[in-house]
């Protein structure tokens, strides 16, 4: 059993300090996998991301009243919202932190979990068996991903001034 990690440094996020709504969007094809085989799978044309190329989260900080956005410091946040990934939608919540930095920008960190459909899991597992180098002598039927995906988000939000 091993964890397969992937990083994505191209994320667009917004936060509304009045309503507490928080959103972020990332491109599926921009994930970089540590495991080369997983990277080749995500880049396979049969993993069709053209129709739904983005991971999208829309949620809200429920305890906004407890956070002073004018005072630098670290605050615990409770987020609830909807995660959209690969055509699937999941209502998911997370406990995280929001740090108000001295320059007024915000740094957020939260961990989300979602369980994917069995059909999607099977699609990835079948590709994984296909991509397994033929020189590796293991039972391909014992390989597979689990249905649980954990998403850790770390974002720094600052005002963008592009003219």
């Amino acid at each position, binding site marked *: 059993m091993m964890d397969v990690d992937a990083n994505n440094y191209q994320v667009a996020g917004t936060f509304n300090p009045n309503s507490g709504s928080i959103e972020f969007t990332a491109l599926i*094809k921009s994930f970089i996998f540590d*495991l*080369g085989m997983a990277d080749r799978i995500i880049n396979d044309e049969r993993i069709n991301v053209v129709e739904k190329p983005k991971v999208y989260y829309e949620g809200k900080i429920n305890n906004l009243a407890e956070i002073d956005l004018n005072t630098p410091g670290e605050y615990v946040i409770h987020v609830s919202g909807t995660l959209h990934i690969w055509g699937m939608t999941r209502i998911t919540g997370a406990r995280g932190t929001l740090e108000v930095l001295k320059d007024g920008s915000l740094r957020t960190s939260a961990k989300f979990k979602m369980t994917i459909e069995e059909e999607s899991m099977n699609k990835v597992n079948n590709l994984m068996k296909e991509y397994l*180098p033929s020189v590796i002598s293991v039972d391909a039927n014992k390989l597979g991903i689990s249905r649980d995906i954990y998403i850790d988000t770390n974002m720094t939000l600052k005002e963008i001034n592009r003219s």
Partner: protein
Amino acid sequence: MKKILWIALLFILLIAGVGVYLFNMAPTSTIGNQSVDVDMNAAVLYKTYSADEMAGNKKYIGKILLTEGEITEISKDEMGAPVLLLEAGTAPGGVLCTFGKGEDLSQLKVGDKVKVKGQCTGMLMDVVLNKCVLEQ
């Protein structure tokens, strides 16, 4: 006989090593010499993509794009990989080009005109190209 067994064992270990290497082999950080699918000016690319994102996704995601434009921003991502933002005319967005971590772009400055080849992964605020290389 013993010698043959040792050679066989070494051979098996070599095969297993190759297998483990292929399984774990890190993805390439640049697209290298891959051939270009689409050759388009950065401003035109941004305008075409943002006018119809769904159509743009179908045309460009996963494709190797060669684009030319003026640098409006130079930065590095969290892994230290250099990133160039190419202008898109009057639009607020542009074409965001992320290079391999080891690429040295220190000779470039804002305002320079460059040709960049990279793989398109979609559009956020900007059209995103990854695994980029500079073209002459």
